[in-house]
């Protein structure tokens, strides 16, 4: 099993959710987060004075999946979250040792 964590632009969340549903992903967890990457935030003007927004709002998606689906999921997120502009985000993939469905006690790939 794999745990996929994707940081995406907030306005792309609906597209990503739909793309994941289409390939059969059963559930995702979404968190509103803030951060910066190589772009290092951006500056705005207020009454002619600059102010730096250090941390930009992003959405973090987490999903646990069967190992066989990994490429499909990564492909779905990359395509649906892509704008081609700076700040599109990243996808992290880590091995997932175990998963448990609390209601039934199922474990492993049955539980994700």
């Amino acid at each position: 099993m794999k745990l996929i964590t994707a940081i995406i632009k907030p306005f792309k969340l609906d597209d990503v959710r739909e793309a994941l549903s289409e390939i059969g992903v059963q559930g995702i967890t979404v968190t509103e987060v803030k951060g910066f990457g190589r772009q290092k935030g951006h500056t705005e003007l207020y009454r002619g004075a600059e102010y730096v927004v250090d941390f930009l709002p992003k959405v973090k998606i987490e999903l646990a999946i069967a190992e066989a689906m990994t490429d499909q999921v990564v492909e779905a997120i990359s395509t649906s979250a892509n704008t081609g502009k700076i700040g599109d985000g990243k996808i992290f993939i880590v091995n997932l040792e175990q998963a448990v469905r609390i209601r039934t006690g199922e474990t492993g790939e049955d539980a994700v």
Partner: protein
Amino acid sequence: MQDQIFHLQYAMDTFYFLVCGALVMWMAAGFAMLEAGLVRSKNTTEILTKNVALYAISCIMYLVCGYAIMYGGDIFLSGIGLDGATDADALVSKVLTESAEAGFDGGSVYSNASDFFFQVVFVATAMSIVSGAVAERMKLWAFLLFAVVMTGLIYPLEGSWTWGGADVFGMFNLGEIGFSDFAGSGIVHMAGAAAALAGVLVLGARKGKYGPNGEVRAIPGANLPLATLGTFILWMGWFGFNGGSVLKLGDIASSNAVAVVFLNTNTAAAGGAIAAMILARILFGKADLTMLLNGALAGLVAITAGPDTPTALGATLIGAVGGLIVVLSILTLDKLKIDDPVGAISVHGTAGIWGLLAVPLTNDGATFYAQIIGALTIFVWVFFASLVTWLVIKAVIGVRVTEEEEYEGVDMSECGMEAYPEFSKS
């Protein structure tokens, strides 16, 4: 028959004064909302406290001695209820005599109590201007002490030289040299801005506003819907401010003048808003709402010195120039490290000077010479009298909260309560 018409004319002119006074009173709400919107949320309770308290102090101080200094008469308004007459019947015959002397289309005859009510709300307006400029870092009680001096002495004395017709310390008379300020671009607005400028110079900038290498940092306001509401309230109140300053409604020429003043006041604000928005778009790349709000107010301030003489197009242009000036003035003050969170000094001071200088363009009775002498007289007196007052207050109780209190917000240090306790601070 003639007496009955004079009764009605007195009633109409008095009523008009009172309604316009109530409109100007409502500008206090406009200032409160504008300022509450343009400061950070941690300073909201304190700025609202200041706005209500300064309004109340203005009313009391003008009653105690301000009106007497400005227009003569007794302190505590003694005798104002019957306008100096011995009883109600004597008042009626006195008014009828005055009305007959003035004639139906002559000078306005109205209740003295309504005159006080109309004048007192102007004092509060001048004082409200100071409140925004010194926001987010001044001690509450230092500000309120200043309000007592400003509304009880500094403004009334300056008002006595202009609308009151008195000599300036016995030296010269602004009315005689031809100084013209219809509703108070200089007398009210620039005076408030001069007091604010002195306060800001004594107080210093908010912590973090200016960087060590001269960079100007933005401190965005917490609530732009409130700031917008405040601007619209001021815009509406201004119809009373300028419209009421015609002083009379009860004959054809006067009521037409009132209509022209309303029209010009409104169109000047629109011109100021549009000009400021376009200039901000050119300079900053985006439409800066706060500049748009300041632009509308600058248009209003600019037309206030002479809303009766320009054509509608002329008034629009006077307002538009005010809108351009205010944006440039705000940027310039920031370069000079004069920190004015709401732009009050630029809106009321810089645009106020422009308003005074614009009067001779459309009013043959005014001259640039007289306008400059008048502007200088008001500015020098209000600025230096305020500076001395601020310095005395600084020496006695201090004017600025501690650095830690400023960081935590003056809501907690001065008022002990937050404006939005259910939201965490950002």
